[in-house]
């Protein structure tokens, strides 16, 4: 069966709800409408209003009540409608969700998933195209993952729901209804908190997640035509980071470039670069370079493609890395 990312997530959510009656979905418009991106399409019809819960329009309320539900033994999956609207819930996420297990010395578990459609490129107005992942990855107690393709969407959402820790689950909204991929429901998925080499190469390692995986694959394809061999790693998990495949790759290539849509300043790339440098200092032929959104607010959509890292910006960084 060929599916889109939206469909993969929808099927994964459905599977998780079938498998475990404690799984609940909460959020704005997740019920009859099926969410503004239709990720929860049909679920309220099939699982009822008690399990697929339209919330009053208040993100702190959604996350705060989810905490209480988790304490009562439920596994809430909260949908934040757009990345830019997670901030009203920020306090509940970083001070409550992230800390309750630690504070209670393991007595209170927070098996919760916070789904956030993230990233730009859909021609939206402000607050609808942001990439808030670094702020969550900086918060101990949270786990943070990003899917990049339909098959991962299907498996990763189920794994995140099955996790006993709170997981911030980032979905590249630009990909929701884009490329299809073949889903084999009988396959055994890779562990949730693992990175994956998605294209092998020898000259430079590109490190991407979410929407930029596709960008990097395209860049690798273009570079190949010019005789350059780029390895592409889909980080998949941002906290914890799975540095194993990354270090293995960089030790071979000697060069790495991080690529994300979030602002470069204090973005994930900073951490990945710092760790690579700490751990393979002598293997590096050039500093780890970082390609990302500029250190400005997200611009009006007519120029968002200038703002977002694209194939050319990645290749430009490859040139710079090779020239070092």
């Amino acid at each position, binding site marked *: 069966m060929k599916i889109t990312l939206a469909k993969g997530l929808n099927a994964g959510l459905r599977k998780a709800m079938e498998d475990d009656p404690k799984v609940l979905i909460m959020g704005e418009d997740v019920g009859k409408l099926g969410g503004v991106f239709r990720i929860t399409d049909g679920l309220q019809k099939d699982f009822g209003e008690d399990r697929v819960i339209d919330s009053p329009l*208040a993100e702190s309320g959604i996350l705060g009540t989810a905490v209480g539900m988790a304490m009562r033994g439920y596994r809430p999956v909260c949908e934040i409608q757009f990345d830019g609207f997670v901030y009203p819930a920020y306090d509940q996420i970083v001070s409550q969700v992230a800390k309750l297990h630690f504070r209670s010395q393991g007595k209170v578990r927070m098996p919760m998933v916070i789904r956030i459609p993230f990233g730009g490129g859909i021609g939206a107005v402000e607050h609808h195209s942001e990439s808030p992942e670094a702020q969550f990855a900086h918060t101990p107690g949270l786990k943070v993952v990003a899917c990049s393709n339909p098959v991962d969407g299907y498996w990763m959402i189920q794994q995140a729901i099955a996790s006993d820790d709170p997981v911030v689950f980032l979905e590249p909204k630009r990909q929701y209804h884009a490329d299809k991929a073949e889903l084999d429901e009988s396959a055994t998925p890779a562990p949730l908190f693992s990175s994956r080499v998605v294209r092998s190469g020898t000259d430079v390692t590109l490190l991407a997640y979410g929407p930029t995986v596709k960008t990097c694959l395209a860049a690798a394809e273009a570079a190949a035509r010019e005789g350059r061999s780029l390895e592409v790693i889909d980080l998949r998990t941002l906290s914890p980071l799975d540095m194993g495949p990354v270090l293995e790759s960089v030790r071979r290539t000697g060069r790495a470039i991080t690529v994300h849509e979030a602002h470069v300043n204090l973005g994930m790339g900073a951490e990945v670069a710092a760790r690579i440098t700490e751990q393979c200092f002598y293997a590096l032929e050039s500093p780890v370079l970082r390609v990302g959104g500029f250190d400005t607010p997200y611009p009006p959509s007519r120029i968002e493609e*200038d703002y977002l890292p694209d194939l050319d910006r990645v290749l430009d960084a490859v040139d710079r890395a090779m020239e070092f």
Partner: protein
Amino acid sequence: MTTDVFSASQAAWNGEGPELVQLLTPEGERVDHPGISLDLGSPEEEAEVIRGFYRDMVLTRRIDTEATALQRHGELGIWAQLLGQEAAQIGSGRALRPQDFVFPTYREHGVAYCRGVDPLDLLGLFRGVDQGRWDPAEHNFGLYTIVIGAQTLHGVGYAMGIQRDGAVGTGDPERDAGVIAYFGDGASSQGDVNESFIFAASYNAPVVFFCQNNQWAISEPIERQSRIPLYQRALGFGFPGVRVDGNDVLATYAVTRAALQRARDGQGPTLVEAYTYRMGAHTTTDDPTRYRLSSDLEHWKLKDPIERVRVYLKRNGLADADFFGDVEAEAGRLGEHLRTGCKELPDPSPLSIFDHVYAEQTDELAVQKEGFAAYLESFDAEGATR
């Protein structure tokens, strides 16, 4: 076990409080309300004002239909329609004095129009060429706010500034000022909106909270947000709440005018709930057939805010065919202005990304800008992208 104390306190909101304030019925009949008077001067003056309201509403609707069409033609990325909410916006917008300040959501196109903002300027945000191109200080009309409810706190803060400027309760009609902060029924659930009630009450700030209860927050009906009429929310915070027929431009005008005067006079905040209906989709990307009945729509069509004024004017001989023809013509010109203007709205330059991040530009951003300029030039030099 008796639970009388609970029912006793519940009585406070059971059927109490004023009924829906209405001055013009859906059938176009002028009615009186014991709690508010329209007070527009002589019959001739009153008629003149009401004709003005009619014109304003027709033009506002035209802005909306043109923008919706422009979106369908791919000229706008999205558009937040106000169809059905013209009376709520014109009634409240026309109640403002120049020195009052407006904090809108993303749907207050009619209010913007009242504040003298060129409707063309409203399109920029939705076209994706800017994030609001008018000068808030010039029109006393803030930028559109998309994060639900955030602007209500800004409104209270601005009102506190007015207090500190000594521009409340002096009795000088040119000086005393108030704030009006718009929000939706859905927004009433946000912490920020409730905190804005608390701050406004605590400081007795000169602010009118104007809630357009259009019955829907995207797909969620008002019942999800509140189980009692929204105007009664104010009672819990210690200031008055009033429900007005939001499809009645006269009632909305009269109530908002009085609420603003309370604010300017130093009598503090008021919540006005304009009871109306979102006749269109939430935005042009929404599909309301997934979640609401077409019969509701039919029901509300009978309460159209413009039609009732047209009937009133006609039936009472207050406007002739010429008048209606002129308004139509003007709407046509406005439509043309929007259609041609929209396509000419300039795309921002890629390098503008780096401008205005700060009032005082930082060196690091200057370097990023230079780097990006050089990068862009490298393509020009190559003569093509890779």
